């Protein structure tokens, strides 16, 4: 039978996929297009939401088009660069801390000396089963400067002075990092543990025969074997850190005085808390471009979508 190049009776199963694809693109793609539109206008709630229905949606209410002014404004604003810098710093510090902690935990729960490893392993990844909003509000309580905040109780116990964690710039940043690490170490541990279990025990035995100590074996046998999976997990978790919204928002809305607004929070607050829709949209788009570029490079280089290519 001759197959038409465009559409064919055999392509009918596409109809099963189309509803999902349609709904998904309506709710993801349309807001993207709309966001691009808003970012080119000077929209504020008073101008954007005048007028009714579909027509005013397409003309952005009564806001006027200002071209790329928002982008030049944003890119020459020191607040933007502050947020941009804090975001990358947050990605760097939290990812390094996550890798160190997770590899350490994974080494402990796969060690031959430790008994009850199965139970320990299922306990250790428990935080993964908790809703993010629960974990983050609880950590918000831990770092609270109100009475009975856990961190300050521990400090008092060590006869140190309590700290107003969320009112200082770097103490708040520290609190973000601790929470981010606790939030996502289970994911890293799962991957590292399965990588560690794939390291052939003959290699370790051979190294031991050669008289290699624990550290030498870790550096020359374990590390090369787990490098790739850990790197892979780090890339994914770095992307998650870059997009972290809930921690700064729940802790102190990116404060004190907007100093710690990670880039997604910055865009969100600029639009919805300070009514600068155009600027907020421009910031968000810059963030999306960065996430997209980051993921694109990794999909290409790390062959993330290998499974698809095989199909």
């Amino acid at each position, binding site marked *: 039978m001759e197959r038409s190049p465009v559409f064919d009776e055999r*392509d009918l199963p596409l109809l099963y996929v189309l509803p999902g694809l349609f709904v998904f693109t309506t709710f*993801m793609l349309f807001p993207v297009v709309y966001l691009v539109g808003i970012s080119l206008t000077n929209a504020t709630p008073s101008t*954007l939401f005048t007028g009714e229905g579909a027509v005013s949606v397409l003309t952005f209410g009564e806001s006027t088009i200002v071209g790329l002014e928002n982008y030049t404004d944003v890119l020459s604003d020191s607040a933007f660069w502050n947020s941009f810098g804090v975001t990358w710093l947050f990605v760097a510090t939290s990812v390094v801390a996550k890798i160190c902690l997770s590899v350490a935990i994974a080494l402990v729960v796969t060690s031959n000396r430790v008994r009850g490893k199965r139970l320990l392993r299922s306990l250790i990844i428990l935080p993964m089963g908790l809703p993010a909003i629960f974990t983050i509000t609880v950590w918000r309580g831990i770092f609270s400067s109100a009475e*009975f905040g856990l961190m300050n109780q521990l400090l008092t116990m060590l006869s140190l002075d309590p700290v107003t964690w969320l009112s200082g710039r770097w103490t708040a940043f520290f609190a973000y990092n601790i929470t981010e690490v606790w939030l996502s170490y289970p994911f890293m541990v799962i991957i590292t543990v399965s990588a560690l279990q794939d390291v052939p025990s003959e290699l370790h035995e051979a190294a031991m025969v050669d008289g290699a100590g624990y550290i030498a074996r870790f550096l020359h046998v374990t590390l090369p074997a787990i490098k790739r999976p850990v790197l892979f997990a780090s890339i994914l978790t770095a992307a998650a850190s870059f997009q972290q919204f809930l921690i700064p928002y729940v802790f102190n809305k990116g404060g004190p005085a907007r100093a710690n607004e990670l880039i997604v929070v910055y865009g969100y607050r600029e*639009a919805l808390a300070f009514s600068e829709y155009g600027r907020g949209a421009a910031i968000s788009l810059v963030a999306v471009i960065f996430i997209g570029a980051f993921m694109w490079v990794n999909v290409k280089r790390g062959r993330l*979508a290998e499974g698809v290519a095989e199909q």
Partner: protein
Amino acid sequence: MSVYRRLVRNVRTACLLPVHIFLDTCREIGYTVNGVRRGEIPPSQPLKTLGSTAGALVMVSVLLFPIYWILLAALSPTGGSIYSSSGLSLLPSNPTVQPFLWVVGDLIVPAYSIAMNIPATNLAVVFTTPEIVLLDVSQYGVQNPSNFKQFLWNSITVAIPTVIISMSLIVPAAYALSRKEFIFRREILFVYVLMTQIGGGLGIALLIGLYAVYVQFGITDSKLGLSLYYAATAVPFNTWLLKTYMDGIPASYEEAAVVDGAPPWRIVTEIILPLSAAGLATVFIFTFLTGWTEFVVAQTLLGTENYTLPVGLFSLVSEYSIPWARFSAFALTFATPIMLVYLFAQRYIEGGLSFSGIEG
């Protein structure tokens, strides 16, 4: 049925795990003691093992201490104080369930009057149902209980439509992607995989656009509108997950059914769907949890009346004072069922993680 049986098996394995570990440990201790006594094992070996295991236990306790602390805070009337004049106190003093009663609130089915008109007459029969008091918290000294029940209702009425809408979008698509060959199939799969990686943060970045559109169409503060959004965001990941699951069903079953002359719809309802029951259950849980735990969009779009549980939880925390006991009890009541579901579905969820190419 098989899902139910598997669930029972999982629960049983999870419950028996500590028992097994305890028995194994006992056996091993006995073996080691004998070995040391007979001089076969140098005494330093078991000591090292003991030390490492103790170290590992300390590590786990430190890592999970926040969870223990929140439980402690919920049970003690003073609220989360681990430091007292007598030093460290890790057990609640005067444990009370009052905070939990505050969360749950009254459980009273009010009295209803049901009037029925008898046709063709002017008579009516009126039934009055009795008031059923299951729990009256004011008896236990709790005034002004929380809005938990209202939040719960809102969460349910957001999560259930999310599940229904997303399942009806996901199941046919997963079937087609797994079993059929058609135009753009690979492109669609590629987009879906890409979206599972960047979906979350993109969602918040796009929130401004979404919010503006919702305001224009006047559907902010609409629970159904929110469900529709959740369903849309759940499509890529879950379609991919279910498709991968369906790929594992041998094609020979279908071929046998075709030989026996079964029509296509019967192949789907009697082979594909029953055999992918576990995959369907996983997708069900995931889509349900999407609506159940999402915070940012719900907080942006919904008004106070329609707050879901996560938004309700957040509204309890303020900068300089936190009602510790109540906050903790609320948080635990919200999170514990999810944690239990996770514990028993752990294997599937970890299996779902490996899809993203981690093995490669």
